[in-house]
Structure formats: structure tokens, C-alpha cells
């Protein structure tokens, strides 16, 4: 989870908690307040009703007590013959609007007078009034005014149903009176879901009930009950609940937005730094910077971060520059060494080296001297040279610098040594070449004479024996010449004196020249000599190529007694491939390798017949390699002919 979400949740919870607590507390407080208010009001209502009822009965009791003391009631003793009690009762009924019956009886229950005249003369106990729920009975004794003896009772039978006049019903509450003993009810409450009647409250889903008992005697069995309809009473509470829910939701929303905004605001600069870091790590572009306007810890962080980036950037640049500088120095050093090592003339070595050193060490004085001097000197010595290279500057040289100068001195001495050796070997090589050249001339000249004179003598010679002898001299001379040529060619190769001189010429022309030399030899042995018809231009050393072909062909003629010798040629990329195939004596497999070794002629029962230096193939191979190619041999075995192929490269 990202910091932003963590922060958001923390902020959200931190803000929501107090807000929620305060909201709930206020809600509960208001609810309680309203509830108490309502309850108080209801209690007041019921108390008022109770008071009304109590007052009514208290005053009723007082009046009856007063009435019971009336002198007129002495007439009980006469059974009210004069109807004076009856008139008294009637007048009370008119004056006091009684809500029940007023009855006067004697001690035995005989009814003397009653507001209901039908009851006069009857016994009150036999009427069953006193047990009936229809009435609430108030009974007071009557004493004779003259002797204070009890002479009877005055009864007030209050119509129970008239209690209803004290009770009421509205949309909030209903009131009822209940007789605890009998369970008889008067009033507006339809159903009372409890039976423990004392001063108490009872509550169920829909209603709250308040019960009140009475202290006055006539009502001691009665309870006043008020039923309050919660739905209606707590309606304002519901509204407040809805209002609070709304306020809470709005608060919740505001807190969410606030928390989101704050977390976003707090986290954004951190995220910027993180993003920048990631970018820098990914791209290695240390020129990136973080921008933050605030003046807090994040500002310090981004400042430090930017500072770090700029330091890294600077460090990297320095390293890069240092690296470039070093490479440059290394390059210069290598160039200097390469120039010094490529000096060819001994007399240039000192001057060029000093020149190079001066160029390389810009702040060091470098010069040549005949003696040791300065801060550091290096001895340079060869057969012709004996000098010191002097390095000088104001500051002393370090040990490393001195070692470096000494190494350079060693290098220069090595170059001098190399040049000396090279000169010596070149001189030796030149001498060798000159010797070979001279020898070649000197050897050939007398042989030419021998061959020439023996030919001349044969011209006029009639004696066949002598002529044969002369011919023999000629043949031997020619053979000797051939061998000398081979040896001289080989010596030339060995001395490295063979120079490749490439020209463009026609291959056909070359074949013609070769054919003119080989054809007579082939004809002598009755061999079929076949040259290819192809003609194309070729760029190589003609003399060397011709020599290769001549050597291979003369070998082929030499070792073939019957059949044919076939020359073929083809071009392949920049290669030209030649092949000389014969039907001669062939070569043993194990001998194939020895073939191109100098001075080797293969062991062969017929060997004595084949004379020669054994250098022909070696020379051919050397020439082929001088022309950028090589030579190969293929043979099916002894007596099965052989095929020599070679290729040369034109570039």
C-alpha cells in the first residue's frame, strides 16, 4: 500500500473518530433531553389528573362528613316519617351535582332515604351494591345529635363510569383507571400488558406506561395508568435522528475529501522525489532535479536530494573528464611509442625520439647531450651512437617518473639494436642474393660453351661413335644445366631473393609458351599432351606461374611412360585453379606427404631411371605460396597416375 493511502486512512480515522464520538454524544444527549422532556410532561399530565381525582374525592369526603353530622338525620330513628331526610338529600343532589347515589340507612341496613326513591324501604345489604364494580362506595356512620349514639350510615355510591370524566385521550396519550382487586377498568386504554400495579413505568415496543396509586381511602384499590404512544411522542426524536445522520454523512464526506486532499498534498513531494530517484536510476541522467515550493522538512529533503544529485553529476563528470584525459595521455603515449618503434634509420632514432618526447612531456625540457647532466639522464648507446637524453625541469622528478624515463631509454636502445640487426641481416641477404646471381652467371657460361661446342662438333662429324659421344656430352651438359637452374632457383627462394612482379596477361599465351617447351619432350615419349581451350586474362607473376607449370609438366612427362598428360584451369572467386593430370607411375599413399620436402625423391624400384635434383616440386610449392596459393597432390596409388593441382590468388 502506498504512503498516500496509509496517510489517507490514518487521517481519515483520526478525524472521523472524534467527529463520530462528538456526533454520537450530542445525538444521545439531545435524545435524552427530549425524552426526559416528554416524560416530564406526561408525568405532569398524569399527576394533574391524579390530583383532580384526589381533590374531588377529598372534597366529597369532607362534604359527606359534614352532611353526616346534620341534626336532621336524627329522623333515622323515626324512619323519616316526615320525609325531612329525603328533602335534605334531594337538596344536596341539586346543589352538588353528585355523580352517584346518596343513601341513608339505619344500623341494620334499612334504607331510610335515597336520592333514588325506589330504594327507600329496602335493605342495602340485600341489594348487592356494595360488591358491584358499578360503584365506588363512601360509607360514614351517623351519630344521634342528642346522645352521640350511632344510629345509622350515610352512603355515597359514586358511579364508577363517571371516573371517565377525569380521564382523557389525545393523540399522544390515553388514561385509564384500574381496580387492582377486580381488574375492572375505566378509561381509554384498550389493553394493559402488565399487572404489577404500583408507582412505576413500563415500556414496550409501542407504548410507555406510567402507573399512579392513590392514598385516599375510597380509591385505595385504584390505579391511574397513562399510556403514551411512542411513535408519536418520539416523532421529533426521529427527525433529529435523520438530521444527525445527514450531518454525519456530510461530515464523513468532508473528512474523506479533506483526508484525501491532505494526504495527496503531503505525499506528492515525496512521490516527486521517489519518481525522480526512479528516473535517475533508470536513465542515469543525473541532471534531473526535484522542485518543491513549501518550507518544511520535505523542502529540506528535496534540497538535500538535489544537492546529492548535483554532487553525483559533478563527480561523474569529473570521473569522465579524468578518464578522457587518461585515455588521451595513453593514446599519446602509444602514438609516441609507435612512432619511436617504427623509426627505420639509425641516425633518425635520437632526433625523432627527442622530438616525440618533447611533444609528449610539454612541461619538461628534453635534449640530447654528450654527457650526464640535469635532473635525470638516460644513456642511449649503439655501435655508432653514444649520447644521453636529458630530462629537466625546476621540480625534482619522482621515482616513478625517473623509472618511466629509464624505460623509454631502454626502448630506444632496443630500437637501435633492432635497426642494427635488421641492417646486418639485410646486408647479409643482399650479399647472398648477389652471390647467387653471380654464381648463376658463372656456372651457366661455361656450360653454355660445353653444350654449344659439342653441338658444333657434331655438325661435321662423320664417325657415328664419335658423333654419339659428342651427343652424350651435349645431353649431359643440358642435364647439368637443368640441375644447376633448379639449385639456383631454390637458393634464390631460400635467400628470399625471389620478387613477385604481377602483370596482366592472357592465360592462353602462357599455355602456348609452356607447350612449346614441353611438347617436344612429350612427343619423344609418344605421350598425348592436352592443354585447355579456355582463355582469360590473369593478374599474377607470369614467370613464377610458368615455372610452376613447367616443373609439374616436366615431372609428369618424366614419370609417365604411356597415356596422356592433361592440363586444366578454372576460375573460382579470386582464385585460379590449375591441375596437371597424368597416367604415370602414381604415388604411394604414405609417400604423398614427403612429396614436397626438399631434396626428396621417392623410393621407387624405377628410381634409377628418374634423375633430377628433387627440387622441382619444392620450388613449385614455394612459388605457389608466393602467389598466394598452395599446391596439392592426389593419387589413386602406385601405377594409377597422379594429379597435381594448385591455386593462386589474383590480388
Amino acid at each position, binding site marked *: 500500500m502506498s504512503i498516500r493511502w496509509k496517510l489517507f486512512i490514518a487521517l481519515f480515522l483520526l478525524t472521523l473518530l472524534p467527529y463520530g464520538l462528538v456526533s454520537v454524544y450530542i445525538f444521545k444527549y439531545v435524545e435524552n433531553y427530549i425524552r426526559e422532556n416528554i416524560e416530564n410532561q406526561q408525568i405532569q399530565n398524569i399527576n394533574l389528573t391524579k390530583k383532580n381525582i384526589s381533590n374531588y374525592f377529598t372534597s366529597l369526603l369532607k362534604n359527606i362528613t359534614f352532611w353526616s353530622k346534620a341534626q336532621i338525620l336524627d329522623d333515622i330513628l323515626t324512619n323519616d316519617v316526615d320525609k325531612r331526610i329525603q328533602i335534605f338529600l334531594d337538596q344536596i343532589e341539586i346543589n352538588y351535582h353528585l355523580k352517584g347515589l346518596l343513601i341513608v340507612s339505619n344500623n341494620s341496613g334499612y334504607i331510610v332515604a335515597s336520592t333514588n326513591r325506589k330504594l327507600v324501604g329496602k335493605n342495602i345489604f340485600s341489594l348487592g351494591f356494595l360488591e358491584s364494580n358499578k360503584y365506588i362506595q363512601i360509607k360514614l356512620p351517623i351519630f344521634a345529635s342528642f346522645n352521640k349514639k350511632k344510629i345509622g350510615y350515610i352512603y355515597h355510591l359514586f358511579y364508577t363510569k363517571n371516573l371517565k370524566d377525569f380521564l382523557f385521550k389525545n393523540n399522544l396519550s390515553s388514561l385509564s383507571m384500574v381496580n387492582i382487586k377486580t381488574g375492572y377498568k375505566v378509561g381509554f386504554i384498550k389493553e394493559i400488558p402488565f399487572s404489577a400495579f404500583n408507582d412505576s413505568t413500563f415500556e414496550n415496543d409501542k407504548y410507555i406506561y406510567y402507573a399512579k396509586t392513590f392514598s385516599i381511602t375510597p380509591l385505595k384499590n385504584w390505579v391511574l395508568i397513562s399510556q403514551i404512544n411512542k411513535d408519536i411522542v418520539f416523532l421529533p426524536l426521529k427527525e433529529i435522528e435523520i438530521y444527525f445522520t445527514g450531518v454525519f454523512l456530510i461530515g464523513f464526506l468532508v473528512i474523506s475529501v479533506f483526508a484525501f486532499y491532505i494526504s495527496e498534498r503531503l505525499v506528492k513531494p515525496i512521490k516527486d522525489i521517489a519518481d525522480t530517484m526512479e528516473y535517475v536510476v533508470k536513465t542515469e541522467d543525473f541532471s534531473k532535479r526535484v522542485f518543491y515550493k513549501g518550507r518544511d522538512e520535505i523542502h529540506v529533503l528535496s534540497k538535500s536530494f538535489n544537492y546529492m544529485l548535483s554532487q553525483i553529476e559533478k563527480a561523474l563528470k569529473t570521473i569522465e573528464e579524468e578518464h578522457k584525459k587518461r585515455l588521451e595521455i595513453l593514446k599519446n603515449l602509444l602514438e609516441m611509442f609507435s612512432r619511436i618503434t617504427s623509426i627505420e634509420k639509425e641516425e633518425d632514432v635520437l632526433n625523432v625520439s627527442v622530438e616525440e618526447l618533447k611533444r609528449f612531456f610539454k612541461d619538461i625540457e628534453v635534449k640530447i647531450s654528450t654527457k650526464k647532466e640535469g635532473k635525470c639522464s638516460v644513456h642511449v648507446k649503439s655501435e655508432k651512437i653514444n649520447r644521453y637524453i636529458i630530462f629537466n625541469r625546476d621540480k625534482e622528478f619522482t621515482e616513478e617518473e625517473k623509472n618511466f624515463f629509464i624505460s623509454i631509454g631502454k626502448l630506444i636502445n632496443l630500437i637501435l639494436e633492432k635497426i642494427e640487426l635488421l641492417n646486418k641481416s639485410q646486408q647479409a641477404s643482399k650479399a647472398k642474393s648477389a652471390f647467387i646471381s653471380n654464381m648463376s*652467371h658463372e656456372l*651457366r*657460361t*661455361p*656450360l*653454355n*660453351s660445353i*653444350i*654449344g*661446342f659439342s*653441338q*658444333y662438333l657434331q*655438325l661435321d662429324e662423320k664417325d657415328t661413335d664419335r658423333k654419339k659421344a659428342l651427343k652424350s656430352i651435349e645431353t649431359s*651438359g*643440358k642435364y647439368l*644445366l637443368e640441375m644447376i637452374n633448379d639449385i639456383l632457383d631454390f637458393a634464390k627462394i631460400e635467400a628470399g631473393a625471389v620478387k613477385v612482379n604481377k602483370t596482366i596477361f592472357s592465360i592462353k599465351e602462357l599455355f602456348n609458351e609452356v607447350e612449346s617447351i614441353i611438347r617436344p619432350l612429350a612427343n619423344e615419349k609418344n605421350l598425348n599432351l592436352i592443354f585447355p581451350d579456355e582463355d582469360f586474362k590473369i593478374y599474377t607473376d*607470369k*614467370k613464377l606461374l610458368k615455372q610452376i607449370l613447367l616443373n609439374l609438366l616436366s615431372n609428369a612427362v618424366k614419370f609417365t611412360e604411356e597415356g596422356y598428360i592433361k592440363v586444366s584451369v578454372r576460375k573460382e572467386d579470386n582464385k585460379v585453379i590449375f591441375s596437371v593430370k597424368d597416367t604415370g607411375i602414381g604415388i604411394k599413399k604414405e609417400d604423398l606427404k614427403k612429396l614436397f620436402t626438399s631434396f626428396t625423391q621417392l623410393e621407387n624400384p624405377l628410381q634409377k631411371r628418374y634423375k633430377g635434383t628433387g627440387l622441382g616440386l619444392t620450388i613449385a610449392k614455394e612459388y605457389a605460396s608466393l602467389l598466394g596459393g598452395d599446391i596439392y597432390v592426389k593419387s589413386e596409388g602406385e601405377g594409377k597416375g597422379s594429379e597435381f593441382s594448385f591455386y593462386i590468388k589474383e590480388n
Partner: protein
Amino acid sequence: MKKILIVDDDPQNRYLLKLVLQKENIEVIEAETGEDGLKKIDDEHPDIIILDVMMPDISGFQIYEKIKDKNIPVIFLTAVVDNDFKNEVEYIVKPVDINVLIETIKRHLK
């Protein structure tokens, strides 16, 4: 009688050529060095010149350069065939086969 100048530092060779050519009724003048040869070309006006290529003082080719415009046929005696004048002049490859020599000379004298 035709006149042939032989310029060759090798006396043996000169002698051989002289013997062969005299047999063919040709007058032979000899020169041992290049210098001598040049002098004799001017003095004797030979019909044909046989020039050895390799000589100590002046090479056969150098001599040929100098006498080119005199329009005297030249036959080189050489071991090396490939050179600058390959197509301008006649060659006899060493060792000299006298039969070839006689044939060549006769062809030029006609």
C-alpha cells in the same frame, strides 16, 4: 659477304659463334665489352648484331637503346625472356642451340 658483330664478354661463346657463323660464310667481328661493341658498330657497320644481355660494363639492353635508330637487326642472347623489348627484337635463349642460331641468322639475312 655479310657482316655480323658479336658482343659478348665470354670468349668461349664468341669463339663458338664465330666457328658456327664462318661455316655459313659470314664475316664475324668480335667485341669483348659493351664500349668496344658500340665503337665497332660505328666503325664496321655490321648487318646483324648478336648481343649478350649480361655484360660487366654496359648491358645488352643499354646498347640496344643507343643503336635502336640505326635499324640494324639485333639478336639477344639471354637466359631471361621477359623484358621491355620482348616484341621488338629476336631472342636466342641460352644455352644456345646452334641449330636454332643458324636458322635465326639465315632468316634475318634474307
